[in-house]
């Protein structure tokens, strides 16, 4: 138990929190855009696992992390394109299609992985970190926060990009109108279906990237069902954030912290059953929902397919 208080343990705990938070952050930011545009993207878990699988395979064969991320994002976009076709263009039920995509891709990726690697689980080499000069030398915080893979910094920077998009650009206005009053956007001369499709594809890219990070950097390997609900946590984050990217970041760090404590407590040999410890992030979800869920306000047209002229 002494280990719990040492500085190196604390640094590892924080490092783990950031590592665990990044996939949630990417998924949450992606989901946020879909929801803003009025699409409840339950399929995000499927997009993540597709991203994790293709990201891993891409990195494994190309021996390049960046090509892996690219493949992961492409995998997420491919699943998102299917979702956009079915739910946005054809107007099928977003929840049913989302669940179908998630279950289907969990099974498909597990199957493909089994064909390729049978029961072996090849590992990738450890990802190269990009320490930030000066900041990375701060005790405890330096190694915890400023010695990560480059994509971690990019993901955090994406928060401010999203803030800028939502607040300052025409695209942000269009997205919000597509979610709150799609008919108003339509009569203003902007194609609602295209706007929503773009939002869903962006979600796919972010989720795919998050999945690829989870497999390649977080775990270093792909195992079936590796996302383990990370996409669903992203949905919770997006709903609690009420359209604000900074809140997604804050939420991701809280959940990431819980996940990291889970791992750290097991490593430190805390005498609590693992099953209980592994429940921690989900208890945190429930606690946050109880505390803030009531105030969550969602776009008025969320989950409703748009049909021009329908009454």
């Amino acid at each position, binding site marked *: 138990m002494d280990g719990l208080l040492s500085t190196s343990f604390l640094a590892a705990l924080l490092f783990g929190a950031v590592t665990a938070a990044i996939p949630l952050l990417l998924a949450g930011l992606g989901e946020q855009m879909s929801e803003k545009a009025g699409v409840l993207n339950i399929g995000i878990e499927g997009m993540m696992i597709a991203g994790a699988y293709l990201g891993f395979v891409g990195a494994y064969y190309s021996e390049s992390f960046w090509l892996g991320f690219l493949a992961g994002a492409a995998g997420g976009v491919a699943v998102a394109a299917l979702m956009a076709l079915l739910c946005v263009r054809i107007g099928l039920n977003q929840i049913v299609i989302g669940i179908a995509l998630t279950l289907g891709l969990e099974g498909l990726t597990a199957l493909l992985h089994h064909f390729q690697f049978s029961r072996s689980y090849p590992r990738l080499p450890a990802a190269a970190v990009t320490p930030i000069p000066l900041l990375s030398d701060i005790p405890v915080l330096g190694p915890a926060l400023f010695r990560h893979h480059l994509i971690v910094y990019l993901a955090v920077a994406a928060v401010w990009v999203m803030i800028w998009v939502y607040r300052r650009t025409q695209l942000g206005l269009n997205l919000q109108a597509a979610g709150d009053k799609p008919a108003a956007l339509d009569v*203003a001369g*902007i194609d609602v279906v295209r706007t929503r499709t773009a939002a869903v594809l962006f979600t796919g890219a972010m989720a795919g990237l998050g999945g690829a990070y989870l497999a390649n950097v977080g775990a270093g390997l792909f195992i079936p069902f590796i996302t383990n609900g990370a996409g669903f946590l992203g949905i919770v984050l997006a709903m609690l954030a009420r359209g604000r990217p900074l809140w997604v970041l804050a939420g991701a760090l809280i959940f990431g912290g819980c996940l990291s404590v889970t791992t750290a407590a097991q490593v430190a040999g805390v005498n609590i059953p693992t099953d209980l410890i592994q429940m921690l992030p989900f208890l945190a979800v429930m606690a946050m929902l109880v505390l803030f869920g009531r105030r969550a306000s969602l776009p008025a047209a969320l989950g409703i397919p748009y049909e021009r002229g329908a009454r």
Partner: protein
Amino acid sequence: MTERTMDRAGTRPAIVTLEGVTKRFPGIVANDRIDLAIHAGEVHVLLGENGAGKSTLIGMLSGLQQPDAGRILVDGAEMAIRSPSHALSLGIGTVFQHNMLVPSLTVAENLALGGRWWQRPAIAELTQRVAAIAAPLGIEINLGARVSELSLGEQQQVEIVRALLRDSRLLILDEATSMLTPQGIAELGALMRRLVERGLAVVFITHKLAEAAEFGDRVSVLKLGRKVGEIPPERLRSLDQAALVEEIVAMMFGRQAGSAAVMIPPRAANDDALLEVRDLAVARTADAPGLDAISFTVGHGEILGIAGIDGNGQKQLAEALAGQRATAGGSVLLAGEALDGLDVGGRRRRGLRYLTDDRLAEGTVGTFPVSINYVLKQIGEPPFWRSGVERTGEIDARAAELTRLYDVRTPSIATPVGRLSGGNIQKVLIARELATGVRAVIFNKPTYGLDLSNTLATRERIREIASQGMAVLLISTDLEELLSMCHRIAVISQGRLAGTVRNEDSAGERVGRLMIGLAA
């Protein structure tokens, strides 16, 4: 607005012409061979009742729907209006009945919607252009305000300015007055006048006769999807208001009918109270006034009106009587028996019926067929259910009978009730509540949102109920309606009855005085 139309304003060219335009929906022909010419410099009124096909016509002009037959000409050339953005580029701007502004965005952001997605919203340029358009029209626009904070009238002005920002030459106003105050309606009328003086064409859609007569330069009348008449400007100018209204009514109904003909059902002299309310009280809530010491009686065959400005406790009173709302004291007696403690079903079985004003949300289940909606309050009861099993045959036979008796216009009894017009949904409700075992009925705003012929039919139905000896409590915000049929009128104000007036010659004035807080 464009130079060309300004130059030729004197000759009034047709901006848009419809020739034999037809639009069909499953089960109905919404527009049947409509011919229409819309000229610059004119307010062209499209008048028709609910379901006359006005909205469909607008849908085709604004690019939301495509005609099945016929042609639309823009500036004399045939043109398929493919989409809302195409309509805008042709200079056709529409202000829809249900506003098309995003409530969570500011006025400026709403006006900026529709720009290229990679551009930044040009708010500064917008501010100048809005000022240039709004000022001459006498409109004030607060660009920084969030739309959800504006009144409906202000939102409408924003939409009109938006249409003008896009250089519209033809402005379509769909049921633009339905949510406005009388003051707002007058302002809109003046605004339309200024717009046509600048050379625009305005199409003004309404189901209110008085507005058509007051604002129109040309009036076209639609009925059941067909254009049944048009009054051109020369003819319109030659008629006085009363003659014009009479002519339009003749087109709309093919008969002369005043909307508020006074006919109080005759009533045998008796003093027995059929429905008696003693000191009824309801606690106030955050968003609704309570009720305080409400007492009244309604005799056999009597119609007691409850007048008052909306939101003074009318809904609470109706719901407390029906058993839908907990009371804080007092009692309700039906034919001398106390109903207190009985739930909705119990009161209904004793013969107390309530017709809600919220026909779609509370009165019916929109997705259920008409047939089930007739027996909605008897679910599980014989003969429609036996041993918990639905007897489709019994229900359908009953539904067919009620549909015939109450003249419900529905494609079939299997049609979801939500697809019917407001007037027909009301008929379903009336049939369900009044077909059997009635002793006293509470009507809450029974003609609200109905067109003229359904309004008249509903009023006739209420008179019929009373002349059969039932007690009727008629809650309405339409004083003319109350004066046209009630024996007595009570005024409710802030949850209390301010007084009761016998419906005699000066009743209107006395009720009016009570409503604004003066003694009768």
